[in-house]
């Protein structure tokens, strides 16, 4: 049984068919890559999966449950978390608080308990702090727990975004160009982290990436998008050697 099953997914903006008949099936625990030239509709697919856009046609089934047309918060509760191409952190909050916001629906207490500082508040806050530090440790960010998110270096901001997404305890993690703007060393480190996350949290990961070293290094399967349509789909090696993919995206 696949973790994510997408069938005939399409969306039009006016006359433009941004995504046309997109199909994908991702097995549980897979590291799946979505690649293609700029403007191919990759991020639009992410926005469709997370409910930012409502699809014109098609179905999205997560872990056997139809989540087509649901709102972003509902989809997050069903188990899809994402990061963004242009980093979107809570800049005025600390690193730890960013992750604690991610834990918002995981550990809860009523508003009144927070205002009156009841025991349930103290207990839940303690649990939140411990859990967030645990997560930050995975990304080697625990030393910066009290730093403002906006003061982190770029590479760490990317990692923090992943940590925050993981805090929502998702089944499927969507990473939108996680290695963008990173140097080769940082990228290498990120590859290890992504694989670690997959193994440690038994996570299914779908990622968009332009860095072919990362894609060929960690993704087991790929889908290539071009002009909103699936150009090619299959095992990484096959896809990357496909002459059409080479012509449309990789360059001869």
């Amino acid at each position, binding site marked *: 049984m696949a973790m994510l099953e997408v069938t005939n997914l399409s969306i039009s903006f006016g006359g433009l068919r941004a995504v046309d008949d997109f199909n994908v099936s991702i097995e549980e625990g897979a590291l799946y890559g979505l690649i293609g030239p700029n403007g191919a509709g990759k991020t639009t697919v992410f926005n469709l999966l*997370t409910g*930012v856009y409502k699809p014109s046609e098609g179905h999205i089934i997560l872990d056997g449950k139809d989540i087509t047309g649901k709102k*972003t*918060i509902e989809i*997050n*509760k069903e188990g899809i*978390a*994402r990061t*963004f191409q242009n980093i*979107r*952190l*809570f*800049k*005025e*909050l600390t690193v730890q*608080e960013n992750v*604690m*916001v*991610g834990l*918002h*629906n995981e*550990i*809860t*207490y009523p*508003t009144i*308990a*927070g*205002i*009156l*500082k009841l025991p349930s*508040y103290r207990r*839940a*806050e303690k649990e*939140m*702090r411990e859990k967030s*530090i645990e997560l930050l440790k995975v990304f080697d960010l*625990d030393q910066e*727990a*009290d730093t403002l998110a906006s003061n982190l270096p770029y590479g760490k901001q990317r990692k923090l975004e992943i940590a*925050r*997404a993981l*805090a*929502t305890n998702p089944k499927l993690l969507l990473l939108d160009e996680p290695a963008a703007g990173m140097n080769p060393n940082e990228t290498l480190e990120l590859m290890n982290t992504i694989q670690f996350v997959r193994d440690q949290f038994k996570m299914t990961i779908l990622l968009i990436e332009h860095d072919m070293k990362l894609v060929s290094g960690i993704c087991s399967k790929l889908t290539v998008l071009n002009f909103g349509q699936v150009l090619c789909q299959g095992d990484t090696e096959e896809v990357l050697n496909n002459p059409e993919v080479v012509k449309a995206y990789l360059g001869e």
Partner: protein
Amino acid sequence: MEDAKKKKMTAYTKQMIITYGMVIAVYIICEICMHTGHMSNQMKGLLVPLCYYAIMAVSLNLTVGILGELSLGHAGFSCIGVFVGAVFSICMKDVITVSYLRFFLAILLGALAAGVIGFLIGIPVLRLRGDYLAIVTLAFCEIIKNVVNIIYLGKDSNGLHFSTKDMMSLGMEEGAVEIVKGPQGISGMPSDANFTIGILLLLITLFVVLNLIHSRDGRAIMAIRDNLIAAESVGINITKYKLMAFSISAALAGAAGVLYAHNFSIVKATTNNFGYNMSIMILVFVVLGGIGNIRGSIIAAVILTLVPELLRGLQQYRLLIYSVVLIGMMLLNWSPKAIEWKEGIVTKLKRGRNKQVEKQAD
């Protein structure tokens, strides 16, 4: 790790203690001055309004600084508090004779009414952002003020009478109590407010706002401020938390309004006290005190209320000096040089203290 956590907790507690301590210290000093006769009557008359302005500034900071939405209708919510609280007190004057209890209930009722109206206004209005939201809240504030100005309410042995035309159309018996008289305002409130209650209300406001900020809900509200799309993507209910911040802010303004009403014998809803002039003045307190800085709001509210009052003797130069103070405060708060200078002083003080400690150790 444990140490770091402890350190953080103490830093946060320290900030809280400074804020509460500042308010309590000012209270004690004022009380001492009052009892030893070192306070002018003019100053005494200002104490409750000062509390009112401080509460207004703190509660508006919840909307502007923490939620990050520009609201220009804050005075409207306090206007609701004024009239609901005052009407309740006048009606209950003979029923509940314990003034503290009556005032407490009036504050609760005023806060509740303002909170509910804030919630109802918030539902359509909070879909807007930025300048658009500012304009619409401004409009609602004016609507509230104008509606209050056409209300006529009186009480006689048959119960309450209500009209929107004039006093005559109430058709009341002889010897009836006229409670709300349209543009002539509301009068006959028992003077239940005093400085102690004002300070208590300010402390409660601080308690609610500061604890809210440091809770799960407060983080959600600040997450919405910092990045709406990201907040939504981690499962935060945007509408819920926007409404929560907005209506708590309105409720606290309502409570402040009740305090304000019971400090005067007559309150009229004019542009100066419940119109946009006041809303903008409160916003000035918040901006000058530092957006999102709760303690700053109180300090700015106190200074900027005191300055024009204390300068009354200078007549035409009064507003000139007021504007200079405004500019001066802005520079002191935000200019990079001033911030550097302030930090320099702090480190010097710290070094001095460390030296003293070392000397003592020797």
